[in-house]
């Protein structure tokens, strides 16, 4: 099963690298959430701000905006190369598969190439032979630092 989960995460990373947003959005369960906490070890996304806390509605707005011709800050678009590694299974929660991994995201945007990175936690729900993302959580190691803008999905 670890192989299936690895394939899934590598496929997700490829979709994001290639800016194939609709296919990436389709990986989520209807109630799935995408969460990038603002603080280390953050437990509360409702009474505490987050770098990203996005349901399907907000994910779709982001995906739409990224492809708008007049998204000035995407002239040129962000280029990215992700490595997802150290993939390991954690104990299941309520029948969902829980996967931990490490993310290194190399981005080039406008004049700067820079690295973002951290630890990811995916909660996956089985959907026949596929998986659906119930929660994608990205704990950036520099979440508490001053940030440049974060436009694409990490």
């Amino acid at each position, binding site marked *: 099963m670890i192989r299936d989960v690895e394939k899934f995460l590598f496929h997700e990373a490829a979709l994001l690298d290639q800016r194939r947003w609709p296919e990436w959005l389709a990986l989520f369960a209807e109630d799935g959430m995408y969460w*990038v906490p603002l603080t280390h070890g953050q437990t509360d996304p409702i009474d505490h701000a987050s770098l990203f806390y996005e349901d399907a509605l907000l994910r779709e707005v*982001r995906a739409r905006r990224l492809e708008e011709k007049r998204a000035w800050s995407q002239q040129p678009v962000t280029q990215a190369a992700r490595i997802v590694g150290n993939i390991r299974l954690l104990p299941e929660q309520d029948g969902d598969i829980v996967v931990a991994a490490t993310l290194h995201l190399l981005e080039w945007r406008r004049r700067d190439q820079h690295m973002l990175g951290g630890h990811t936690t995916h909660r996956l729900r089985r959907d026949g032979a596929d998986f659906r993302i119930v929660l994608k959580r990205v704990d950036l190691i520099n979440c508490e630092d001053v940030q440049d803008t974060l436009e694409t999905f990490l």
Partner: protein
Amino acid sequence: MSPQDSSFARGPSRLVQADRVHKSVYADPVIFDLEMQRIFGRAWIYVGHESQVPNAGDYAQALLGREKVFMIRGPEGAVSVLFNRCAHKGSALVAFPSGNAGKFLRCPFHGWSYRCDGTLHSVPVREGYAGTRFDPDDPAFSIRRAPRQASYRGFVFASLAEDGDDLETFLGGIKTSLDNFCDRSPLGEVEVSGGVFRVWQTSNWKIFFENLNDTSHPMVTHESSVNAARAEYKSLPAGTKLPFRLHIIEGNGEPYEFWDKLEMVGYDRGHSYMGAIFQPPTDPVSLAHIATLTAAYGEQRTQEILQVQRHNSIIYPSCSPHTSFQQLRVIRPVAVDRTLVEIYTFRLKGAPPEVFQRAISYANVVNSPSSNVMPDDIEVYARCQQGLSGDGGDWVSLHRDAGRDRAVPGGFVANGLSELPMRNQFRAWAQYMAREA
């Protein structure tokens, strides 16, 4: 004209005209250094809110111009604004953006310790200083305090200048924005909560500050996010009420006529606000909020509070409160082409929890580094910084509705599309910059 030539020596206010300013004010590092001295070295600068340091020993760091300071709560309740610098050999005393120093501030290097008001408490092996010029009563051996500090309804400001107007005189008419910010709490009190966003801008601080009351940019700069929000709404089942999170994004797409009907108010010393039209809300969160205000203040006072509807307010030169969703943006210039902006969310004490959760939602959608709205602002600021750093023109236009600003006590008013706020900021800028040390 360049700032190094003799015309600049006659006063940087020559760079400011009634309807245009010289590009060097945004791009010349010499002028930036002078701003740090003459504006950020004199004005009242926002440090933080008292609620960030509720308990004895709590501290929160801030920048006063280029000076790294922190505010700290003492055991008797007083808040002091201190330089982050040990009197011994200069080490920074506090390391985290905020935290608790314990009963005394203790330097990590040799262990000198200080009370929370900055006065020296103890020095190890004190005998070694006997017969020397070390004098524990000399302020040189205590932590330097900000020359002036004051608090208005919990908002702590400090000044690097020994003299000047007191804080309330400095605030003038923009005090009403801080009042309305707090009066929307049934207890009349607010507290910082839910974390802080910190974002880089690769542009001059004034470009951002001017944009806060710029009504002719939203429908152009933010076209991509407005389109995305509107397309998303159209994809929802027919008859769905416009969700709050889409409403706050697509509001930037209002037409020019909408913005022009608003009132632009500019006060002396560079402050200003953009008035908004009061529309009695019908959503459950607002109604629950209003019910708590009515219970606390009665119908009439509640209506008075709600009628004060403002988009961004500007407290020049350091912060911008947004009363509708309890946001406060703090501007920290770092270099002529680099600015740090911090965004805080506040809880209205005594209001229903959903009001704060809505403020957090607003912060996530609009003010986060991941906002779909903000990156277009930051991009156009950076493009301005690029253009202003070259030789493609000498002046920046502030002509919109110039000459039509109407004088009122303490300032000016204008129609919503007017560039009054920019002209008003430069009016203050020129006054600060003309005064030499």
